[in-house]
């Protein structure tokens, strides 16, 4: 009798303990996986927040940069440009008095030409700092104006096409400014580093994205090497930074001696 009741106690006690043990093991597995999942989600959220903060900081930095450019352009035009114009007028008066002395008059005319060139440079720099055509007439016309100026100043030929985009079509101001600045950077690189003779620009829209393709026939470069070099990759990284603010993407295909094709996609 005693043994039977002991047996029942032992068996039932053991069974209960075993059920609890198995239950505990299963609970630990499930709970630990849930905790892990929560931890990963929290880390992901923190990472996204950090990325968003970085993006916002970059956007602010770019805005500050543009404001500074406007200020410099205004100062150049209003202060330096005005002083140069007054200097030119004063010099004209001086020249009239020197007409009788031939050699002095010749020197004076050369000096006046230099002054005119300086005034022209100041106007050009001021215009490049703040692309007023972009603001007033939109992307297509401002690109047209820019490449015409560059073509006049260099021997490089430009081909610009804009399928599916009307001449006066407008996009978000940030997008237009970003594309314009990127074109400035790309043209600058193509002329200075690649020594390109022909540059092609294509602007299209597809699947709610602006697609911009820039091709030059220049020297080409090792993209991976330049990208990773802290000294020479700055221009490329600046372009990537600008695009990251508007969720754009850049793809560069280049090899030594075979030119460069840069494709930029920006969601509208």
């Amino acid at each position: 009798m005693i043994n039977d009741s002991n047996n029942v106690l032992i068996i039932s006690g053991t069974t209960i303990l075993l059920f609890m043990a198995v239950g505990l093991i299963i609970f630990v597995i499930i709970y630990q996986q849930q905790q892990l999942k929560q931890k990963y989600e929290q880390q992901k959220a923190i990472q996204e927040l950090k990325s968003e903060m970085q993006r916002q900081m970059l956007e602010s930095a770019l805005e500050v940069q543009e404001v500074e450019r406007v200020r410099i352009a205004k100062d150049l035009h209003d202060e330096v440009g005005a002083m140069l114009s007054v200097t030119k007028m004063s010099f004209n008066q001086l020249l009239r008095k020197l007409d009788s002395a031939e050699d002095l008059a010749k020197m004076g005319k050369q000096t006046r030409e230099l002054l005119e060139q300086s005034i022209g440079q100041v106007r050009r720099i001021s215009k490049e700092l703040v692309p007023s055509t972009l603001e007033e007439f939109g992307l297509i016309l401002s690109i047209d104006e820019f490449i015409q100026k560059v073509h006049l100043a260099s021997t490089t030929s430009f081909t610009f096409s804009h399928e599916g985009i009307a001449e006066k079509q407008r996009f978000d101001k940030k997008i237009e400014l970003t594309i314009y600045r990127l074109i400035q950077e790309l043209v600058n690189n193509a002329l200075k580093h690649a020594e390109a003779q022909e540059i092609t620009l294509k602007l299209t829209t597809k699947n709610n994205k602006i697609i911009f393709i820039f091709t030059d026939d220049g020297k080409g470069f090792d993209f991976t090497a330049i990208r990773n070099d802290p000294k020479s990759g700055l221009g490329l990284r600046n372009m990537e930074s600008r695009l990251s603010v508007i969720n754009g993407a850049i793809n560069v295909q280049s090899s030594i001696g075979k030119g460069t094709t840069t494709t930029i996609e920006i969601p509208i």
Partner: protein
Amino acid sequence: MWERFIAMLSKNPLLLLASIITWLPIILAIYRRKNLTSELKILLFYLIIYTLFDISEWITASAKIHNAYLHNINEWVGMLICGWLYHKILTPSSIKQRAVIVLTLITVIISVFEFSWEEIAGYSFTINKVVIITFVFLHFHSIITEVKVSNIIQHPPFWISAAFLIFACGTLFIYLFWNHTISTTTQKEVFKLYGKISQMFFLTFIVLLSFAFIANKLAKRND
């Protein structure tokens, strides 16, 4: 002695299986000895010590020498190694680690007072099982709160704790009522029954410990 040994084998196949299956994790561990973590090395040591005691018990049983004291010493040494193992598994310098040291010392002291040459030290074994269950709780609590383990199925200490938990819970009541289950005065049929139950839980224990070595192999492969 040899005839008695053969007779014991034929009458207690489960006992033989339990002894043989102890070699499974040992072989797994020796095969992967270069990639063993420190906890698994301690576990291997535990299994080797257990096997040596097991062989001694077979020899003494075959020679009709009373070997309850061997079982008691085996349990005592096993408990020390288990304490060392959990000291290694738990976070260094934590309260849990210190608790493991204190509890292990308590079981050692109790084992000394409860030691018997003739009988299984049932109450000492019972306390050992309770302490092992406590170790497992502490470890599971660490797993849940610290969230450092990415894949618990491939985490060897988890399988070690699962093995110890199942074995301790399965045999706790057997040792608590040792007077009625595995004492020298217990009825033969009752003794055999609880002996078999105990061996079955031991088999489960060894299989789960083997998973610890397999999990280690999978974890290293994925690294």
